[in-house]
């Protein structure tokens, strides 16, 4: 899929050593290499600069037309509008969560480290932290405006802080279900072409 990759991995501005990234995340070295295949195709789709812009991120999400299915359900759209959350804000939120340092683009390190949180082996703490930031749409450091979660607001100050969130999630572990993507375990079979670019001899995990 994707563009013609004329560049050698090392020439990518965002390239980080897969061995280092693997040591920092829940991914094996092969898995990081497989993720690089995906990263390359997303990052070249609008501008071939080896970095993922917000546009390229949105394009990668839209490319299979699934967004049409989401908005085929009017109820979902109505709820988002009622909460004054435009759909583009949700995608923007996800982009911002990956772009940890708010550089305006996602580099390969950001990509791998963010996806690592969704790995089945990632820590609960990381998943709770990420989910808290996800729902903190305004970036105020608190989850606000959402009546449904007010039972989490134990000190009744109208907002949910990180400690309240941790307690709430511990009592309702199903809330963290979205923070795990089981198919991340199969990444090397989804992107097998990484073997052609693999620099590492590794026993399959």
């Amino acid at each position: 899929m994707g563009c013609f990759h004329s560049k050698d991995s090392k020439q990518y501005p965002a390239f980080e050593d897969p061995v280092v990234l693997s040591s920092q995340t829940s991914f094996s070295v092969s898995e990081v290499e497989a993720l690089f295949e995906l990263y390359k195709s997303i990052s070249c789709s609008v501008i071939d600069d080896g970095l993922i812009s917000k546009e390229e991120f949105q394009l990668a999400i839209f490319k299979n037309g699934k967004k049409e299915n989401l908005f085929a359900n009017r109820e979902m759209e109505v709820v988002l509008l009622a909460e004054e959350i435009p759909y583009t804000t949700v995608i923007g939120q996800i982009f911002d969560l990956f772009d940890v340092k708010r550089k305006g683009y996602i580099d390969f390190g950001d990509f791998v480290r963010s996806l690592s949180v969704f790995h089945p082996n990632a820590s609960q703490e990381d998943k709770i932290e990420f989910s808290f930031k996800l729902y903190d749409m305004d970036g105020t450091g608190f989850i606000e405006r959402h009546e449904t979660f007010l039972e989490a607001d134990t000190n009744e100050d109208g907002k949910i802080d990180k400690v309240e969130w941790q307690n709430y999630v511990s009592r309702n572990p199903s809330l963290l279900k979205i923070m795990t993507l089981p198919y991340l375990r199969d990444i090397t079979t989804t992107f097998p072409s990484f073997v052609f670019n693999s620099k590492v001899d590794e026993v399959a995990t």
Partner: protein
Amino acid sequence: MNAFDIISMSLGLDLSALFERGEKKEKRFTSTSSYERILERVEEAGGKLGYNVQKRKGAAIGLIKGRLTILVHVTEVAESLFLVDLKTGDREDVEAEELYWGDLKDGFGDIVSWHIEGT
């Protein structure tokens, strides 16, 4: 269903979409032209190439020539950035597909800003 559910679903869908390997033969390109201009040019190119042009609801145009049906769908993915998708109907003929795409792409001309290959 509340906003949390939707944000959660959206996250799940968005991330799984990132990982999907589209098996389908689709052609798509991005355009920075205006929405109106894109539709106009698609209809024009289709007409010139002898397709029966049918406007569909929701930013879609059908191009029909004999047994070949192409659905052209325009989505706004970012401000001033549109994704144009071309999907063929059931009777997929790889050779015909390559032919149709080449001619259409020429006909579309400068509304095509970046061509993304399908797998």
